[in-house]
């Protein structure tokens, strides 16, 4: 974006791939999805899975400011200087899509103050099925839904389900208890997503966040290639 204009200032104006000093900036991955679907738990699990091999940081956008940041701090997944919170004025989707300026400041400040970084995870506040991240803010986005939110969500579609670079269907361990049909969810998601990947995960059982972490590694390999 805006690559035709030379920015000699201290910060790039938007999604420029290089920082003012010419180095490639960190890959930015957004995590969005409805309230309670497990975004913060997925971020925490990703941090634990990746923190030993990558230099990473997190921006949270919870509508009740700092709650997610404090959860991540309590879970001690990253040192406090690598977690920052952005206030969203009760409109979390605005902060990640329509007016990304506060989030851009946050990711740039993290790189300035704790860098160099390989990866920044930007977690949206819990929102509705239409909330997606601006391409000016993130390079790729993960949409997290869960089986307890209703197995018709993939069929309903909406920008998050249909266009996210990765769809995560979380809490599969709960499916028998809430009567969700995982096969139907998978078939609906495939129909909606035109070949984009879907991961079914349970952070409590089985392989946990491994598949999502693997996808993140692939994106990072493509970013730094």
């Amino acid at each position, binding site marked *: 974006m805006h690559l035709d204009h030379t920015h000699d200032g201290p910060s790039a104006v938007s999604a420029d791939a290089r920082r003012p000093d010419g180095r490639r900036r960190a890959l930015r991955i957004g995590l969005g999805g409805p309230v309670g679907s497990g975004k913060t738990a997925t971020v925490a699990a990703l941090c634990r899975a990746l923190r030993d091999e990558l230099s990473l940081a997190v921006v949270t956008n919870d*509508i009740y400011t700092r709650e997610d940041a404090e959860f991540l701090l309590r879970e001690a997944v990253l040192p406090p200087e690598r977690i920052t919170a952005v206030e969203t004025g009760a409109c979390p989707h605005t902060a990640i899509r329509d007016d990304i300026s*506060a989030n851009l400041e946050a990711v740039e400040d993290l790189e300035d103050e704790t860098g160099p970084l390989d990866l920044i995870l930007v977690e949206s506040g819990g929102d509705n099925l239409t909330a997606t991240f601006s391409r000016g803010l993130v390079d790729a986005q993960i949409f997290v839904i869960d089986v307890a939110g209703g197995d018709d969500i993939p069929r309903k579609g909406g920008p998050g389900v249909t266009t996210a670079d990765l769809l995560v269907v979380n809490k599969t361990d709960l499916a028998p208890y809430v009567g969700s049909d995982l096969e139907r969810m998978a078939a609906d998601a495939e129909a909606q997503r035109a070949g984009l990947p879907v991961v079914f995960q349970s952070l409590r059982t089985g392989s946990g966040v491994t598949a999502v972490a693997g996808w993140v590694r692939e994106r990072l390999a493509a970013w730094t290639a």
Partner: protein
Amino acid sequence: MSRAALLVLADGRFPAGGHAHSGGAEAAVRAGRITGAASLEDFCRGRLHTSGLVSAALAAAAALGADPVALDAAADARTPSPALRVAARRLGRQLVRAARATWPCTELDALARQFPKGAHQPVVLGVAARAAGLGPEDAAYCSVYECVSGPASATVRLLSLDPFDATAALARLAPELDVVAHAAADAARRALADGVETLPAASAPLLEIGAEAHAAWPVRLFAS
């Protein structure tokens, strides 16, 4: 100049971070000083004639080409609350980013370089107005409007206030917005001759005190 450029700059959806700031309304709502449309209107009126006038005059002076460094120091002296200075600089930094992408120009680049952590938002607003080919009145209008529209839209969200009532309050304030915008632009013109220290310095004690209380809350919806 393009008159429509003013609409672009003044649009509440201009992506410069304003949506996350309540202009003191969140603190005033919590303290019980804003409880509905009438007290919202009175809050906005008080803000307009104090920090609104000051911001508009700074913006108008910057639009006239006054030295941004001197204006920024004048803004610091007129903002005792460190929480409000931080908010003004954050918003200034966000606005300079949006304005550089929207109206690329060397003055905005220079401003971003001089203030890597952000200049006071009204100063940036004035330089942005200049970059958009707008004049001091335009910058002042833009500033006074966001001074009242920010608290109004925040209060709609905080109190579940009927949005029609909030918008009607803004419309009732319109004649006073005219008066303040013109007073600000006149003051800015005088300041070019007499120095930026002659710019208005109207203060609102409860905005300063409330901002400090708000900044200490562990949980809040708005950044200021």
